[in-house]
């Protein structure tokens, strides 16, 4: 049985999301150079890239796990750990930096006892630092889940994150 045929059978767990991942790989003809696209897709489906998913993608694209793991860990946007229910992304681009993004980040970290790049113990909030979300005109910018909000302050950001965590 060829590798591709094996992958096409889905995952032994019966998780439907693997079928959807198969469909994405088929759309790229299981081409190894589609690795980034497939990992993006996998992260959308699963929220993060577990070892299981990485192995599955490697098989599907006929790539060694070392290559898949190497790429998944190289790029900042791929997460190998589950994210919190909500994500607060503080932009630390230059424009936001000179307008006080550092203080906003410090306030969020202190208020929720969490370090940038990690998730609160109750799994409710992930705090992430972005390199630049390109919203420099309305700096400092903070992204709440998917929604970019400009001209933020310590107070406005904490109001949102506290609303999520109930803290």
């Amino acid at each position, binding site marked *: 049985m060829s590798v591709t045929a094996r992958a096409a059978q889905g995952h032994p767990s019966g998780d439907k999301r693997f079928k959807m991942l198969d469909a994405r790989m088929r759309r790229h003809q299981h081409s190894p150079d589609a690795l*980034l696209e497939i990992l993006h897709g996998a992260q959308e489906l699963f929220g993060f890239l577990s070892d299981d998913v990485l192995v599955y993608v490697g098989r599907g694209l006929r790539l060694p796990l070392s290559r898949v793991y190497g790429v998944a860990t190289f790029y900042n946007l791929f997460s190998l750990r589950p994210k919190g229910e909500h994500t607060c992304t503080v932009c630390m*681009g230059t424009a936001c930096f000179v307008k006080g993004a550092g203080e906003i980040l410090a306030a969020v970290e202190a208020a929720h006892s969490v370090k940038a790049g990690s998730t609160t113990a109750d799994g409710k909030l992930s705090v992430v630092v972005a390199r630049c979300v390109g919203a420099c005109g309305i700096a400092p910018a903070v992204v709440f889940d998917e929604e970019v909000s400009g001209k933020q302050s310590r107070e406005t950001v904490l109001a949102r994150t506290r609303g999520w965590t109930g803290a």
Partner: protein
Amino acid sequence: MTGDELRQIAENETARRRRCKHRVGVCMAAGCQSLGAERVKAALESEAQSAGRGSEVEVHGTGCLGLCHAGTMVSVESASPDGTPARKLYERVDALGAAELVSHLVAGGPEPADRRVPADSPFLAKQTRIVLSGSGEIDPERIESCIASGAYSALERALSEMTPAEVIQEITASGLRGRGGGGYPTGLKWATVAKAAGARKYVICNGDEGDPGAFMDRSVLEGDPHRVLEGMALAAYAVGATSGYIYVRAEYPLAVKRLRTAIQEAEKLHLLGNRIFDSAFDFRIDVRIGAGAFVCGEETALIASVEGKRGAPRPRPPYPAASGLWGMPTLINNVETYANVPAVLTRGASWFSSIGTQKSKGTKVFALAGKIRNTGLIEVPMGITLREIVFDVGGGIPGGKKFKAAQTGGPSGGCIPAHLLDLPVDYDSLLSVGTMMGSGGLIVIDETSCMVDVARFFMEFCRDESCGKCVPCRTGTVQMHRILERITRGEGRPEDLTRLEELAELMGATSLCGLGQGAPSPVLSTMRWFRDEYEAHVKEGRCPAGSCTMKAPAVARPAGREVRA
């Protein structure tokens, strides 16, 4: 698709535009969207409907209108008696503003004058818009709207009237230089790829705008994607490529969405695909999405990333022009470079080269940000002085603070201090003062920011973004960052400044790619112009700007316990 059919689409669209008295464009770029542009657009539509004048007012989304901090921006194009549409720009439009605006347009109500941006305001008057000419006028999500404003007409003309060599000749004659930062002559690059031998050739558009504080490419891709696609198609025709990729940052989901729509629409009309304009020219474009790695803006790293690998650069030569994507000759240019191409071919090389300075032709798009009143997107002719950009177009520094420096070129660039405010902004002048044009981020720093801290900020960025392939960059950025951090904590030592200079020289000379070679630039540049600030930190234990939390003046450290940097 033939040229006549293209013109027919344009005519139909123009006729459609004429039927409505007012065309209202709501800025749908990322900045305004986050300030509620969707709601403003809906309010404008419903106000026009409820006034019973829905057919007179066309409300459409459009690209970045420039004044991002004063969003939501709205442009109004009204038919005037002599047929030429008059355009007005409004800022800070909210639901209330939308109601006032519609009542002014259809019911003769008073103009919301306090929201009007005067046409003679320096913000508008000092700009020359080539790349951004469509932003505000077109609806980027409708190809017909772009065609009516001239999209694909340059491609049609090139395919029917010009040989590839003539296209290259025109680009060379225009003096266009790469807008990604380096300023390499575009015509020369195209000619090299055209001459290179290979079974296939590729055209890549670098949209991995990673410089923090820069959002020009984002705005162009979101506001006028067809301009970039057309530029790429012209480049492909000139160099003999049949396949192209646009590499866009994953942080720009809206740009990705608009590009995908644009490519689909262009394919539907056979403006991309096989036998474009019934010529023998085939060209396809795929979008590739990055995953958050600054180093992928370096061309060889970007190519590795398109191939689905880690974005690690490789030594050059061979340059991508000889051996790029999958080992084939590859043309790689920045978004803004491609966006200039259709205008050069439509209006001619001599028109283009009449704008700018002797060695830097045309315009440059800048993202103005930081401590400046008019934060947003501007396009100015090359050679404009920094003073004009900051104080006229940018409106000066808010809060009565003093201008201290402007940072250009991102983490590979440097600062321009106040005494050089009259410097003309072009590739060579910027290089001569130790910074560079870069992709166009221009961040204004006022007296409240500490320059050592700014240098530390950029070094931290480079440290985190170093891919780790070459030693000078991997360890050099860590060492330099440690020293800078120590200085900003008030624990700097007298020998630190010499150490920084030594490391900077070493990294600049021996790093593999532009990231490592350029990483010391912000440090060298701030040391050159603001050495007194460094010395105040190290020798006097104080931060002149008052932004670093300094420790109490350090007591002399016990000898022999040298903590390794």
